[in-house]
């Protein structure tokens, strides 16, 4: 209807919009749009370098070990990614994980030693959601940056756990929790007779990643989360219920943290309330290395997973490459800086001017 009247008139608007778009295609544009390509590149580069330094790196068990080691960090990272996308930041998720995993193990030991494993997971997720929602509620009602709120809740959760719940380690996990960590998905023997196995709990990570991807890409909630990260005021004005989005985002991250906590316990075969807290900054770094901006509104699930892999791989090859313990931290620090610098310069070169 409109086009009939206007299409044959010269329309400068057209020229500016599409002309500009054509200029910025090609590799640079691709990287600007898909920063996770940088992460992938880095990952491949590192693997090649390590393989050259020590060909022993190239064995199937490496892959399995790295996959296994990524689960807890990966679950945390997915939660962090969702929160970063919404323009927030969270440092309390490790405390949530510690609190839920320990309380639930205690609960199971004392009251329901034969609780089926799926109930354990359900309770962990529910507990994580409850604590996460508390975070979200505080961030929303106090209207302060979530970094601050979650520093507060981290102290609160961890202090509460150790002061009021307990500090003793639980070595003998109750019933199914103990066995779950040992069920393996696939198993094979290496030349020297060692068994390599991929535990079943590994599957939780890809499942959570796919769910997160679906929520972020295919539901209105996902769009609302990105909107909130892009412009909170506008999001509210456009009719998105910002409170619900806050509660959802932190609740979801809490759920993942609860899940990660239980995985950590079952994999480790002990519940140590001192565990996990202290690793949060490294997780955030992984997500940022996966292409999410700390300022919010960007990032992708695939990038996040690549970022996690990058961090886990670097952590798991230091001995392989033969870097002496004394120098390992220098190496990791320099790596983070180099990766970040590389990342930023690649991104910046192609960032649109406006």
């Amino acid at each position, binding site marked *: 209807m409109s086009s009939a009247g206007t299409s044959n008139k010269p329309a*400068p*608007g057209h020229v500016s919009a599409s002309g500009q778009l054509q200029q910025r295609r090609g590799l640079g544009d691709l990287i600007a749009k898909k920063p996770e390509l940088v992460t992938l590149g880095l990952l491949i580069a590192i693997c090649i370098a390590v393989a050259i330094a020590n060909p022993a790196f190239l064995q199937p068990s490496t892959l399995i070990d790295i996959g296994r080691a990524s689960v807890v960090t990966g679950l945390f990272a997915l939660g962090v990614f969702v929160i970063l996308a919404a323009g927030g930041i969270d440092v309390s998720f490790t405390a949530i994980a510690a609190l839920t995993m320990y309380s639930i193990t205690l609960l199971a030991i004392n009251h329901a030693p034969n609780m089926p494993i799926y109930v354990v997971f359900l309770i962990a997720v529910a507990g994580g959601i409850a604590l996460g929602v508390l975070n979200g509620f505080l961030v929303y009602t106090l209207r302060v940056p979530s970094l601050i709120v979650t520093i507060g809740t981290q102290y609160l959760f961890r202090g509460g756990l150790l002061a009021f719940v307990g500090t003793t380690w639980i070595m003998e996990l109750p019933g199914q929790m103990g066995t779950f960590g040992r069920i393996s998905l696939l198993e094979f023997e290496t030349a020297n007779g060692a068994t390599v196995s991929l535990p079943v709990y590994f599957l939780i990570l890809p499942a959570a990643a796919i769910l997160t991807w679906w929520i972020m890409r295919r539901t209105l909630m996902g769009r609302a989360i*990105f909107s909130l990260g892009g412009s909170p005021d*506008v*999001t509210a004005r456009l009719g998105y219920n910002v409170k619900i989005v806050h509660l959802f985002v932190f609740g979801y991250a809490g759920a993942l943290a609860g899940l990660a906590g239980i995985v950590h316990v079952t994999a480790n075969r002990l519940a140590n309330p001192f565990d996990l807290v202290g690793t949060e900054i490294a997780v955030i770094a992984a997500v940022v290395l996966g292409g999410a901006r700390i300022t919010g509104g960007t990032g992708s699930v695939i990038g996040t997973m690549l970022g996690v892999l990058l961090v886990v791989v670097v952590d798991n090859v230091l001995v392989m490459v033969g870097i002496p313990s004394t120098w390992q931290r220098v190496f990791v620090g320099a790596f983070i800086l180099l990766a970040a610098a590389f990342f930023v310069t690649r991104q910046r070169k192609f960032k649109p001017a406006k």
Partner: protein
Amino acid sequence: MTQNTQKNRCFLELRNIHKRFGGVHALRGVDLSLEAGEVYHLLGENGCGKSTVIKIMAGAHPPSEGQIVLDGEVFNELTPIQSLDFGIETVYQDLSLIPNLSVMENVALGEQLVEGHGRLLRRIDGARMQQTATKALSQVDLDVTPELMSTIVSELPLATRQLVAIARAIACEARLVIMDEPTTSLTRREVENLIDVVSRLRSQNVAVLFVTHKLEECYRIGGHAIVFRDGQCVAQGPIESYSRADLAELMTGRQISEKRYREGSPSEDTLMSLSNFSMPGRFNDVGFDLRKGEVLGITGLSDSGRNELALAIAGIRPAASGTISINDKNIRIATASDSIDAGIAYVPEDRLSEGLFLSKSIYQNEVALILRKLAGFMGILDMKKGKEIAREISADMRLNTADIELPVSSLSGGNQQRVLIGRWLSINPEILVLHGPTVGVDVGSKDAIYQTIQKMAEDGMGLIIVSDDLPELLQNCDRILVMNAGEVVSDLNGASASEDDIYQAMLGSVQEGAA
């Protein structure tokens, strides 16, 4: 509930609406009623409460007092989703687009959100979104390509963004479309198109509430005028029944005449000379002279390169090649401070994001450029002198507050603009580049700003006004350079040229190309 009984009956009513922000009483008892299929022009000077009343209708702010009546149902406040559900679509003054989402999502997601009454855990219907966006975008005359649809909004030029915001408002089946200053960064062509859109909406029995400071647009569109002054509605009636002078007087409570402000003439001395100024893809081989006491206008379509030229002179996005000399001395401009050191002041277009330190005091904003000069013994700031200067500037700029410790965020748009211009005058520049100096500024403040411009020219300053407000250029400039496709295509005399001349020059090559 047939169409007929609905038609021409008032469907939205505001009753005795008050709104207070802390100590600011922004609305003081507003009564309004809107009818379907009518166009309303909400007029008033900066800070009189236009945006606020709109935000109340849209559910973005709750009123402090009063009621909103929708189809006879009385509400004490609305949520955005209620408002959208009822069919009120808004183009906000700040556009309110989500910068990191694609054009398509910005335009068409609202529909699905409203349909689910705000429920968020729903799957997105991609095909439908595509369809809705395509329709709406073509209505505002944008070329709907897959690239455009998937472009992230923050990568678009301002003008396209504005069109996208309008497209979003008309994407849904609306009953009332509100547009808060939708034309500020549109070129005339795009404005023409918007006027088409408005009449089409009207013919579909949709009410339109239009806010603008450009009175000629209101007359062109026609309809009802609603005049606000100081948080109250002071007049209502068919717009044709008011003359420009009437409206100006109603808005300001004073009489303001339409006149050419430029009276003086420039001296013979060349102040600044630009030659072979180029930035590939943006502007090409631009050269001109600016004389002492001259007011030079630069205009062009949104993609003509005029903005980049201004930014290059200001050192923000320096030119790739070319020379610039001031008082016959060649200078190099690679950064903003080079340009400031050379005596060039640049008042940016987007005062909120590029100009002001909103949370900081008027004083700090005013002295931001002269901190080095204020530093005395051991680099310690002479606060007393600084405050004196800030007070002087405030007085010169006729700021309507004496308390320079107030945060700039507490000022209204026009006053903020004066703070910004005042800041640049603090360095006593030889050359002042004003980019869209009166964008979103009301008649009263405009008058004050124009008078300041002329006074500065008389004092021997060279001024460059980059603007697409043609009357503004004609009222103020000695010469007007028109740019097209990165080149200066025309150099017109401000006293004798007409709007039409400029317009022809702006479109020149595009029309040739199309012919």
